[in-house]
């Protein structure tokens, strides 16, 4: 798992590339916790995430709830079909908002 953070003041975009499994979750845990404590908008570019395990979902949900408590929102951008299906099947679609940007999906 490799992550890149683009800070834009009150919002930030986190680009994740790789597998959000146990070791991937360790990589993203601290950046997500830090950003979700300070940003009002957190965008997670998921296009490069090939697999997500429940521990990875847990960190995303924790960040989404932290941002949400302050009235902000966390959005998952362009997850692939398999990742989006895991989120839906896991009953997390209401907690983890998904947005698609046709241009960046190519």
């Amino acid at each position, binding site marked *: 798992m490799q992550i890149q953070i683009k800070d834009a003041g009150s919002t930030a975009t986190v680009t994740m590339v790789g597998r959000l499994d146990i070791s991937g979750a360790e990589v993203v845990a601290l950046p997500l916790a830090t950003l979700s404590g300070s940003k009002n908008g957190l965008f997670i570019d998921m296009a490069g995430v090939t697999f997500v395990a429940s521990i990875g979902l847990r960190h995303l949900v*924790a960040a989404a709830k932290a941002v949400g408590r302050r009235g902000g929102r966390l959005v998952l951008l362009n997850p692939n079909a398999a990742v989006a299906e895991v989120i839906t099947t896991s009953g997390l679609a209401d907690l983890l908002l998904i947005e698609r940007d046709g241009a960046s999906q190519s």
Partner: protein
Amino acid sequence: MSTPDAKILVVDDVADNRDLLLRRLARLGFQQIDQATNGHEALAAIDATDYDLVLLDIMMPELDGFGVLEALKRDGRINELPILVISALNEIEPVVRCIELGAADFIVKPFNPTLLRARVLSTLEKKALSDLTRNELKRKQLELNEARTLQLSLAPPPFAGTIAGRSLSIDVLLDPAKEVGGDLVDHFRIDDMLVLALGDVSDKGAGAALMMARTHAMLRALTARPDAADLFREPQQALGILNTALAAGNDSCMFVTFLLASLQLATGSLTYVRAGHIPPFHRNGTGKVARLRCMGGPPLGLVEDTAYQADTVMLNPGDRLLVLTDGFTEAHDLADSVYGETRIEEFLADLAPSEARPLKRLVGQVRVFEAGRPAFDDMAAILLSLEP
């Protein structure tokens, strides 16, 4: 370990060398010093006494220093017993070989008292530290083994027989990836119902195990309530109570995907609630497999006061219901492909009615698929089979 308590063995075939070392060590405050004149005597002494340090000469009659090191390396004791090799100034190659065999360090003859003191004390200090670490690891392993035994005992035994006039069997499996894990499996009877429960905590190891045990205990506590039959007749009620309790103050957002199902034994009507869990697999008498996909709500522990939704299906004689955790479906092979759900569907479709306890075979198939990769996740499963 304080200096006088350390037990030291001096091995040298030359009496003058031994006497000199013994005097030097005594001057440093060591009181428990034994001596040996060759390798055989050294190994016999090491067998009999728990030494903290051995000073070992290389060139000796009968069995030399290399032989002693090789013997200690063979049985693994070299990792627990530090050896300081005694060498002459011109013996560089033998010293290198000794260190490759596992010797901790070396001292050269004639002995420099300051250097001898520094090497002996620092080697003993390292030994004390590694003893401490090893003992701590051993203690933790014992605790974890005990926790594993306790956790496995939370899974009920399989069942085969007749309940309330219905002939059925229940196969159960719980296999944590580490010593303890976050999967839970249970089945019990309430009134005219058979209740099946399967859960998966969104983490692994000790933290997940505590969450699992807490969830399991709360589920079982519900069965003791006067309104237990009502709570499980509409399992969304029972699940709502569990969820609210788990969600309170759950800042870490550790969650539990859960499947709770109640089978009316008289009619075969199965009411289930799926809290974010993998949709169960339903095989009818003709071998066709369908999925119970109705979403009951989010995993337990995330959204307080969730109103869960239940769905109902009919199970007929000859039908089977398989519920499992993602330790099966997300097991990886060497090329990072997942075991997936199709293989599970095929397994269930092909099940022979006569096979007793097939879940162990399914785990075996997953292990073959993983081809030696360490277990990725905890595994739990429950298979209900209604006799034709």
